[in-house]
């Protein structure tokens, strides 16, 4: 019995530590996302060269989507192998389609 309670206690402590860690990550990513948004808005209002601004905006957007999926929608947790496979499959098909339109049709 004593051992059991002990193990439950360690388990509980482990879970608590893990949750704390996760909370920290979420706060950090949330802060980062706000910073990214501010950067994006300032870059647009600052009237910089379009060729410079647009790629950076795209990169920031992709990173934000990653944060959203992995830290807020818990895709980093176990058991998401199949959803991520489907997700990346869909993304690559969509990417190919957009690439085609850009380089084969409009360019």
């Amino acid at each position: 019995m004593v051992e059991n309670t002990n193990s439950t206690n360690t388990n509980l402590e482990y879970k608590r530590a893990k949750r704390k860690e996760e909370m920290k990550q979420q706060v950090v990513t949330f802060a980062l996302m706000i910073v990214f948004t501010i950067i994006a808005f300032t870059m647009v209002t600052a009237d910089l060269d379009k060729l410079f601004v647009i790629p950076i905006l795209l990169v920031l957007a992709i990173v934000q989507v990653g944060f959203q999926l992995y830290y807020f929608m818990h895709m980093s947790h176990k058991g998401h192998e199949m959803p991520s496979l489907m997700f990346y499959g869909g993304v690559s098909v969509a990417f190919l389609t957009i690439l085609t339109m850009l380089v084969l049709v409009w360019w």
Partner: protein
Amino acid sequence: MSTTIEQNKGFGATLWDYLTTVDHKKIAVLYLIGGGFFFILGGLEAMAIRIQLIKPANDFVSAGFYNEILTMHGTTMIFLAAMPLIFALMNAVIPLQIGARDVAFPFLNSLGFWLFLFGGILLNASWFLGGAPDAGWTAYAPLSTTSPGHGVDFYVLGLQISGAGTLIAGINFLVTIINMRAPGMTYMRMPLFTWTTFVVSALILFAFPALTVGLFLLMFDRLFGSGFFDASMGGNSVIWEHLFWIFGHPEVYILILPAFGIFSEVLPTFSKKRLFGYTAMVFATVLIGFLGFMVWAHHMFTVGLGPAANSIFAIATMAIAVPTGIKIFNWLFTMWGGSIRINTAMLWALGFIPSFTIGGMTGVMVAAAPADYQYHDSYFIVAHFHYVIVGGVVFGIFAGLHYWWPKMFGKILDETLGKITFWTFFTGFHLTFFIQHFLGLMGMPRRYWTYGADQGLELGNVISTVGAFLMAIGAIVFLYNVIITTIKGDKVSGDPWDGRTLEWSIPNPTPHYNFTQIPLVRGLDPLWIEKTEGRKGMTPAEPIGDIHMPNPSILPFVMSLGLFIAGFGAIYQIDNPIWLVVLIIGMGITFGAMFIRSVKDDHGHHIHKEDLDKGAGL
């Protein structure tokens, strides 16, 4: 719970049962009837094409009508015959093969079928309402955007509705196969037909949205005055070709992969050996699915994409021959040294291997971009894709129907008639299409309604038409076989072929709930493992308990009917805005049915374990 015991019912009750059913086995029968009906329709169109081309400058049909027949033959055969017949087999077999009591979303399964059927009816209603679509099954812009009348509008709306049904069915099978496999059935223990269905469902999920988008753009161009494909308004007609083939090329793999799966079930069963190179087969299936998305532009070599793009797509296309070759060799090795029984299902599988290999070989030929400039839009292409689609998919459907008929209907299709079907259809098929390779090389263009007398094309076309009649005879004998077997055939046991996979562990007739106890899977070919260890059936993975089953519902039918009505409204509102009322009424019916579905709780019903041995749900 005597109400769950099926009794002899009147016609009305049976009809209502099928209109409301969410049972995957009954939906399979519905898909079979729907797909079979459209297969006959597409076949009649094919016969009209061949009769028109039997002699030079024939006038059996007019040029305009020929365009309509040709368009509808392609569209019907791909979307309304081949796809639903494949879905019929998937629905009949997949839940049984993975040890599940139904699919993951039985309601959506029913919705998928009714959307397909109403989409197909809408498309074919165009025959009676001023002319069918006439821009080819590919509906290239600007031919499709400028085609007069409402034909192409019916194409757009009909395919949009039935395409939604296909998308729903694909998602349903994905979730079913991921989540509902019996205990012990890991991914690498799934039968090959389940594997191919799984990969195909993923292809449907990724490919059909491209068609949906393309059809929406075409709809806006035709019905609402936009200019996506109109160069004079800043659009670009090549966008349609890309969108169509980004969908269209995976589509042909969506058709052929399940056929591969069927042969991978039939050949081991009738060779009494496990499938040779199972792991390689799975790998090849996944690889074909993956590569299938990177080759669409080989349909567009002559568009002028430039040498770089053409080279990339040519090499990617040729690469697909590698996994397909792996499969062909594995089927041959499966039979090698086996104790082979040759019956009708096996005959179709044996006929498939050389036929499909010829189609694959011409495929590599047309994949060579410079040579394709010669083959493009000639009868060589027609011969090529009929070799892969008839020689692959249709042979696969026939093999699957003969193989699983005892599981679906409890009786074995007559073997003599089956063999007559095979030999007439097989001979007719090669007569019809082999000669078309040479007609194409001699310069006969595809899709033309007639040809001149002095071009040396007469003999080839006569042979081709004779072959088409043989195929028609084969199909008629098959229909006769179905009728005579239904009337006179004897009931067989649940395992008439000495099968290897889970579906053959179920008694005949299959109970409503499939498995009294979910079986425990201990390896590939689970039933065969139990047989070799001297057991009669599967080891159960759970005690006998109450079985939870979904309730029937008429809502899928109503939702699809609503979209069908709305389709007419959308098509005719361009003539007279009053038709917008029909559009709104149709959408209202659909949204109303969706609202009822959302607010009404439906938790299904339980079959209590005390009633199981009294025959509940049989």
